[in-house]
C-alpha cells in the first residue's frame, strides 16, 4: 500500500497521481483502452480535492471492473452487474464519501441493466464510468448488448440478431441528470469529463468508448483516429454552436424534428443557423437526439450532453431523517417499546 507522500499545505495533504496508484500489478492485455481510463482516473483524483480516504471505487465483473484493484483508495470488486446497488447503499448510508462505479457494457446494460435504471432515476450522488467496448472481453469474445446488429463473434458465428442499446439513450430514459461521453484515445478530453462528472451533484453517467484490441479491435477507430477525429466527432461545448470539421465549417442544424449536417457558407448558412448546445435544457429531447447520432450519418457527439439539477436521493433521505428528529425528537427506545396499548401485570 502506498501512503500519501505529498506535502501538507494548511494541514491539508496535497496528493499527486502516485498516491492513487496501488501496489497491485495491472493485468489488462497490453494495448487495452482500460489503461488510458485508469491513468486519467488516477490523474484526475488529486485535482478533485477530496481526502483520499473518502474515495471509494466499486465495480462489478468484467475487464473494466478490475480497475478498483489498481486505485489506492477504498474499493470493492463486487459481483456481476450489482455495483450500482452496493454503491447506492454505501452513498445513502455515508453521504460524505465520494463514490465511483466502474462498469462495462455487459455489466451495466445486460446483467445489471435494472440497477443502472434505478440508480439514475434516484439521482444518487455518485459517478458511473461505463467502459463501452461493445464486446465481452473477460469471457473471451462474445457479443455484448452494445454490439452492432449482425456482428459475428464466438457466440454469434453468423451474426447477432438482437439490436444494440445506446447507453446514453438508456441513461436519458432513466431520468439521468448528468450524461456524458468521452473516448479512451483522448486523455485530455476524458480528464475534463471526469472532473465535470465529479462536480455534478447527482448521478453522473459517463460512457467511455474503449478499444478492446483483442476481441473488437478498432471498433471506434473510424471516428476516433487522430486524423479523422475532427471531421467525425462533435465536441460539445455548453453555450456554443455545434460546429465540427477540420476546417470548423460543418455544423448541426435542426430540420423539423431531425438533426442534419450542414456546411457553413453554403446555401447562405451561417453559425446562427446551428443548434447551440445547452446541457442544462430541462427538456431532454435534444439530448436524446444527440445520444442517437452516430457515424457515418453524423459526427459522434462527445462531451457533456446533459447536466441538470434535481434533488439527490441521499440529500432527500438525510432531510427526511433530520426532519423526523426535529419534529419528533431523537428516538427513545423506552418510548417506542411501549407504543400503543400496554397493560401492567401485578
Amino acid at each position, binding site marked *: 500500500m502506498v501512503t500519501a507522500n505529498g506535502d501538507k499545505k494548511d494541514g491539508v495533504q496535497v496528493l499527486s497521481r502516485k498516491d492513487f496508484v496501488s501496489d497491485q500489478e495491472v493485468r489488462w492485455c497490453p494495448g487495452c483502452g482500460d489503461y488510458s481510463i485508469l491513468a486519467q482516473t488516477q490523474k484526475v483524483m488529486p485535482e478533485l480535492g477530496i481526502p483520499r480516504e473518502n474515495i471509494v471505487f466499486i465495480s462489478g465483473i468484467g475487464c473494466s471492473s478490475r480497475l478498483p484493484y489498481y486505485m489506492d483508495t477504498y474499493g470493492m470488486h463486487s459481483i456481476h452487474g450489482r455495483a450500482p446497488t452496493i454503491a447506492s447503499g454505501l452513498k445513502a448510508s*455515508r453521504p460524505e464519501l465520494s463514490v465511483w462505479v466502474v462498469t462495462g457494457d455487459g455489466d451495466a446494460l445486460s446483467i445489471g441493466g435494472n440497477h443502472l435504471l434505478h440508480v439514475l432515476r434516484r439521482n444518487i450522488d455518485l459517478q458511473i464510468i461505463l467502459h463501452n467496448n461493445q464486446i465481452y472481453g473477460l469471457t473471451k469474445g462474445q457479443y455484448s448488448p452494445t454490439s452492432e446488429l449482425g456482428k459475428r463473434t464466438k457466440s454469434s458465428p453468423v451474426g447477432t440478431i438482437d439490436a444494440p442499446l445506446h447507453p446514453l439513450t438508456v441513461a436519458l430514459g432513466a431520468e439521468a441528470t448528468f450524461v456524458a461521453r468521452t473516448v479512451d484515445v483522448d486523455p485530455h478530453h476524458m480528464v475534463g469529463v471526469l472532473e465535470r462528472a465529479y462536480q455534478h451533484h447527482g448521478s453522473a453517467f459517463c460512457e467511455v468508448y474503449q478499444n478492446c484490441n483483442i476481441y473488437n479491435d478498432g471498433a471506434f477507430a473510424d471516428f476516433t483516429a487522430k486524423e479523422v477525429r475532427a471531421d467525425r466527432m462533435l465536441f460539445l461545448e455548453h453555450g456554443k454552436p455545434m460546429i465540427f470539421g477540420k476546417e470548423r465549417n460543418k455544423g448541426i442544424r435542426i430540420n423539423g424534428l431531425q438533426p442534419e449536417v450542414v456546411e457553413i457558407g453554403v446555401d447562405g448558412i451561417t453559425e446562427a443557423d446551428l443548434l447551440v448546445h445547452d446541457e442544462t435544457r430541462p427538456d431532454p429531447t435534444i439530448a436524446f437526439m444527440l445520444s442517437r447520432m452516430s457515424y457515418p450519418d453524423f459526427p459522434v457527439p462527445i462531451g457533456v450532453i446533459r447536466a441538470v439539477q434535481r434533488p439527490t436521493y441521499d440529500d432527500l433521505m438525510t432531510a427526511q431523517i433530520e426532519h423526523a428528529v426535529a419534529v419528533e425528537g431523537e428516538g427513545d427506545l423506552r418510548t417506542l417499546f411501549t407504543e400503543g396499548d*400496554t397493560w401492567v401485570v401485578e
Partner: protein
Amino acid sequence: MTTLTKESQGPEHPELLELDRVTIRFAGDSGDGMQLAGTQFTKTSAVVGNDISTFPDIPAEIRAPQGSLPGVSGFQVSFASTEIYTPGDAPDVLVAMNPAALKTNLADLPRGGILVVNEDEFTETNLRKATYASNPLEDGSLRSYRTFRVPISTLNARALEDSGLTAVQVDRCKNMFALGLMFWLYSRPLDTTVHWITEKFGKNPGVAAANIKTLKAGYAFGETTEMFATHYHVPKAKQKPGLYRNITGNEATALGFVTASKLAGRQLFYGSYPITPASDVLHELARFKNFGVKTFQAEDEIAAVGAAIGASFGGSLGLTGTSGPGLALKSEAIGLAVMLELPLVVMDVQRAGPSTGMPTKTEQGDLLQCMFGRNGESPVAVVAPATSSDCFNMAIEAWRIAIKYRTPVVFLSDGYLGMGSEPWLVPDYDSLPKIPVVFASDPATYKPYARDPETLAPPWAIPGTPDLEHRVGGLEKADITGNVSYDPANHDKMVHLRAEKVARIAQDIPELVVDGDERGGLLVLGWGSTYGVIMTAVQRARAQGKRVSMAHLRYLNPFPRNLGEVLTRYDKVLIPEINLGQLRLLVRGTFLVDAVGFNKVAGRPFTIRDIEERIGELA
C-alpha cells in the same frame, strides 16, 4: 373448554360461565374488516389480563371478488386464564360473515362449537358464489353446531339509520356490530375499542360515532335478546409481573433490529423489496426515521441485499429482509458478503413454497436454502426465533453475532411468527447489553484479512479512515493481505478459515436446554415457530405420564455445542417440522442420530393434536 364455576344472574339474565380458555375465529369477506375485529378483540383481551395468541389467515388476493371463496379472510384469537403458547388448534366460536366464510372455515369448528352467522348474507347469489347447492341454514347441515343466526347487516343498518352515512359506509361498520356481540358473549369492556375508534377516525367524527354506535348495538343485542342462554368469562391469566403490550413477530423483529442499532451505536440501513409476509418489517422500520434508521426500497431483491452490503462496507448495520423467493435471488450477494467477511443480517420470513407457493401461508421450507443455497463453501450463521416476541431477542442476537464474527447471519422467521401476535413483556432498555463495535484505525498494524485469534474475524476498516485504503472483492484473497490469489494452498486455507470462523460461534451461544427428563424416553426437538405446539403437546403427554422431553433450537448454524451430547441421552428423537425433514437431515448427517420426523406441509401451523398423536406413536 372446562366450566369452572357457575354463576346465576337471575332468571331474566343469561347465565355467566367461567372458562379457562376460548378461541374465536372471525371470518368474512376480505373487505369485511375481520382482521380489524380480530385485533380489537385481542387488544381488549390483553388489557383485561388474559394471555393471548393470535393468527391471521389472509387471502393472497387483496380484493378477490366479493363473496367468493378465495376472498375469505380470517383472524383467530385465543385468550386464556393460563399461559398459552399457540392460537389454539380449533376455534370454539366461529363468526361467519357470509356463506363463503362458513364454507371455508366450518371444517375447523368442532361439533358442538358455537357458530354465529350473519344470516342476511345467505342470499341466493352469495350461496352460489360459495358453491352451496342448498342453504346450510335451512338444510339441517349445521345441526351439530350451536348455531346463532343473527341478521347482522340489518341490525347494523337499523342502528345507523340516522347516522347520515351512505349505505356503503354503513355496511362497512358491520364488523363492529359483530365485535360488540362477541364482547358481550365473553364479558369484555368496550372502552379500549371505543378509544381506538375515536383516535382512528378523529378526522371523521361521523364515521367514528357510527362505528361506536353499532359496536354498542352489537353488545346490547347480546345482552337483551333471548337468543343466547349463556355468556362467558375468562379470568386473568397468571403472568410474569411487568409492563406488557401485544406484539406481532414482524413488529418485534423491527424493534429488535432498531434496538441492536442503538446498542451498537451504529446506523441501521434496511434494503428491502416488498414481499409477503416480510413487508411489515419494512413498513415498521420506515417509521423509525428519528432513530436514524434508513430504509431503501430497492428495485429488486438483489439490489436490496447489494445496498445492505454497501452500507455494511461503510460501517453501518446493513440489513436486508425477504421471504423464500427473495432469498433465492439474494444468494449470490450473500456469497459475496461471506467472501468479503462483512457483517450482514438477512431476514427470511418463510412462506409456503416452492416458487411463489402460497405467499400468505406459513412453512419452514427454507432452512436448507439458508444453509446451502449458495455456490462454493459459503457458511453463514442461522438463528431462528421460537415465538413472536422472541423475534425481538433473536434480532438483537443476529446482530451481535454478525458484528462480532463479521459474517452474514440469517434471521429465519416465518409467516406464522411474523403475522401472529402474543403479549410481550416490555424489556428494560437500560439493562440490555451493549454490542461492541471496533473499527480498525492503526495503519501500522492493519492487514485487511488478519484475524482475531479467538473469533477469527478480520478487522472492519471503513472508508473515511486515513491510510487504511484497501480493496476487497469476490475473488479469492490471500490470507492476511487480502490480495487476489489463485494459490491452491491459500484457497484451501481460506475455505477452512471461513468455515472455522462460523463454527466458533458455538462457543458464544447458550447451550441447548432440555425441558423434561434429563435422559431416557423420547426427545422432541424443534426449531422456529413450532415451539408453542410442541411445548403444549409435550406438557400434555407428560401429564399423561409419558416419558417425553423437549428441546428447542434457536441457533441452527452453528448448533449449540452440547446438541450432539444431548441427543445421545434419549432413546428416541422426534423432529417435527413444517417441511420434509430439513433439520432432521442436518441432525442425522452431523450426529449420526436416527431421528424420526413429523412432517406435514399444509401451509399452516401444526395443531397440538398433530404432535400429540405422533408422540403417542413413539412414547
